[in-house]
């Protein structure tokens, strides 16, 4: 057995041990096994990364999973540049979240269960990114969805948490349905599910069309869009974004790990992984870019007015995921993955910081009831500030380089690129605004909560602040591997990704790049400045605006009524069908009719039949005599003919 197998195997082992022995034997020590396992995975992932860095690409099969006729699927690992970076992101953030959870989940009744699920999640995510074939990716894809469901509904006694878990699972079904069909189509058309074979043969499908309901649809576009369907669900893009904000019902470390840094980025990873397919279809690319850009703008506007600290960060996640798709859609896969990688650190940091605030506020989430937390929890404040500066795109920090790379490459990508660039820049300003809204409302000013809460305020334990500080280093420095040439850097990460993801050729002058950069910096600083005026200097302005533009405010406050719309067009008709047709007719009449009707008929028949048993011997004798008479008569008649 070689070491790469151990990367997913260690967390799996930790899961098995914790889930079996956790409840009775391991109990409060559950974190040791989980942390050691993910630490081991991290160490091996780093060594694998170094090997990839030196130019090696690891691709081999471990064993045959399914062999049936010409359908052959193996469990195999592909560790190229894209996977290597994902391995680092997944294992490092997972490790930090594990450590943070020791403090955050302390004393929870389901302590062992929590760590078991985290391990299972880490295993599934690693299988997803390491697979060398589509079915293994699909396995990981569904498994991370399952873990997400487990962990959102971790506090299942709470109805909202259980509901949110179900919502996440069901909404993802919609996307995964498309994804599943996409996988099947790829197998039908190309006869294989292995990446190397898919990418080798995909060119042969070029120009082929398939007839669907009388329309000729380009085959590659269709496959690409079906795959993208899965990504839309998993990465919470419009129109399937509704589950992610609700997923915040789960424990905060879960929000950081699954619903910010890793699982939700699986969609971006998948689109980047299948870039040879997407590149062949301009339509699909434009759909990806526009979906990303629209989602990004849409989520950012909702985040402007929300008061729940975790929900703001959740909408910010949706928005940043939109950014990544925007990048993929303009062919800048490398920039998209670069943003995925920097985003993992600053967004995990934001979530863990929010968790630290919740810890101090005894579960309070409303930023209107916070204020002045800066002096009570300095570590949380400073790390949160760094993350906010990073996500806002302040030069020098991680978020700046990745965001700028995306905007610059979008700017150079024709008309669609210009449109999404404009949207992306607007989002940059909004992002800066709502990120600093949290800073000013929660950490500055005076405390607006109850006295009890104020008395309770305290900095979080070491186990929680240490991951915050490490992530803060990531939120600052993660972007330094991608300093663009225009700023005197070498853009090492783009060159690193080039063999797998390609790199758009940009000939524009540095001056133009400075202009694009300047606009986005201005947007970021403008956003922060307006936020400062609104929430620090003149707090009456946002209140007046909310009154003045009441309709806009309520629309944003109610998240564009998307949940209500879905409730109306999907949930209610489905429920109606379920209760009035499935329960009442199919189940109540047909199935129960058969199940109850057959025994009832037999019983009825028996009731009648037992009347024959009178118990009088003479009756039996008479029937025997009559029987003999009848039979003899018949025989004689038959003979006589």
């Amino acid at each position, binding site marked *: 057995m070689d070491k790469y197998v151990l990367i997913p195997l260690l967390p799996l082992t930790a899961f098995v041990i914790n889930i079996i022995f956790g409840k009775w034997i391991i109990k409060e020590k559950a974190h040791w096994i989980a942390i050691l396992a993910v630490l081991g995975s991290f160490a091996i992932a780093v060594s694998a990364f170094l090997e990839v860095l030196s130019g090696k690409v690891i691709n081999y099969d471990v064993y045959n999973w399914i062999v049936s006729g010409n359908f052959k699927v193996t469990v195999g690992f592909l560790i190229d540049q894209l996977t290597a970076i994902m391995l680092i992101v997944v294992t490092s953030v997972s490790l930090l979240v594990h450590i943070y959870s020791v403090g955050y989940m302390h004393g929870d009744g389901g302590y062992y269960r929590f760590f078991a699920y985290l391990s299972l999640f880490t295993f599934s995510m690693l299988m997803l990114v390491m697979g060398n074939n589509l079915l293994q990716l699909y396995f990981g894809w569904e498994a991370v969805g399952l873990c997400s469901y487990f962990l959102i509904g971790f506090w299942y006694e709470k109805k909202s948490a259980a509901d949110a878990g179900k919502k996440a699972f069901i909404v993802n079904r919609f996307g995964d349905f498309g994804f599943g069909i996409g996988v099947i189509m790829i197998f039908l058309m190309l006869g294989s599910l292995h990446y190397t074979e898919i990418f080798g043969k995909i060119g042969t499908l070029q120009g082929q069309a398939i007839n669907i309901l009388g329309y000729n649809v380009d085959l590659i576009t269709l496959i690409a869009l079906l795959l993208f369907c899965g990504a839309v669900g998993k990465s919470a893009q419009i129109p399937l974004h509704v589950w992610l904000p609700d997923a915040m019902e789960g424990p905060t470390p879960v929000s950081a790990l699954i619903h910010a840094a890793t699982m939700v980025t699986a969609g971006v990873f998948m689109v980047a992984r299948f870039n040879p397919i997407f590149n062949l279809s301009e339509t699909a690319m434009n759909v990806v870019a526009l979906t990303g850009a629209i989602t990004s703008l849409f989520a950012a506007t909702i985040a402007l007015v929300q008061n729940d600290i975790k929900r703001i960060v959740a909408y910010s996640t949706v928005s940043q995921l939109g950014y990544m798709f925007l990048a993929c859609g303009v062919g800048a896969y490398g920039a998209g993955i670069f943003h995925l990688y920097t985003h993992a650190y600053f967004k995990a940091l934001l979530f863990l910081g929010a968790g630290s605030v919740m810890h101090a506020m005894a579960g309070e989430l409303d930023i209107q009831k916070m204020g002045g937390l800066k002096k009570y929890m300095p570590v949380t404040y400073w790390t949160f500030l760094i993350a906010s500066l990073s996500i806002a795109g302040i030069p020098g920090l991680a978020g700046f380089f990745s965001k700028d790379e995306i905007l610059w490459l979008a700017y150079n990508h024709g008309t669609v690129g210009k449109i999404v660039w404009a949207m992306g820049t607007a989002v940059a300003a909004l992002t800066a605004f709502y990120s600093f809204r949290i800073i000013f409302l929660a950490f500055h000013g005076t405390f607006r909560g109850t006295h009890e809460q104020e008395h309770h305020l305290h900095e979080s334990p070491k186990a929680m602040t240490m991951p915050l500080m490490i992530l803060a280093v990531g939120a600052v420095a993660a972007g330094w591997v991608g300093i663009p040439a225009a700023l005197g850097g070498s853009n090492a990460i783009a060159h690193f990704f080039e063999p797998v993801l390609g790199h758009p050729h940009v000939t524009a002058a540095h001056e133009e790049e400075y202009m694009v950069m300047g606009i986005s910096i201005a947007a970021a600083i403008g956003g922060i400045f307006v936020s400062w005026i609104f929430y620090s200097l003149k707090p009456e302005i946002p209140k007046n605006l909310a009154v003045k533009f009441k309709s806009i405010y309520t629309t944003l406050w109610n998240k564009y009524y998307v949940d209500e719309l879905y409730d109306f067009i999907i949930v209610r008709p489905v429920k109606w069908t379920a209760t009035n047709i499935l329960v009442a007719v199919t189940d109540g009449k047909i199935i129960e009719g058969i199940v109850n009707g057959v025994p009832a008929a037999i019983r009825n028949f028996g009731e009648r039949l037992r009347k*024959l*048993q009178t118990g009088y*011997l003479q009756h039996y004798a008479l029937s025997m005599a009559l029987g003999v008479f009848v039979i003899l008569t018949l025989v004689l008649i038959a003979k006589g003919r």
Partner: protein
Amino acid sequence: MGGAMVPLEWYIGLSAVIFIIGVAGFMIRKNIIIMLMSIELMLNAVNISLVAFSHYLQDLRGQVMVFFIITVAAAEAAIGLAILVSLFKNKAAVHTDEIIEMKG
């Protein structure tokens, strides 16, 4: 042989009459002893016809069969009476309308 022989039809007629008396007795009477006797009547009615046919056809197999039937009838009567005695001991009843536990 010779002289006025009783023709076969008479034997068959007698046999039929006795058989019908047996059937009727079995069905009409409720006393089990009488019913057992009715069964004996039916069996012996068959015996008469068997013997008559045996003579008519000059074939001894019919008479061999009669011996079997007599043996079986004796055994049947013995078992029937044994059941009857035991029934009377347990239920003090010899009439079939008093023994209707098997009523459905």
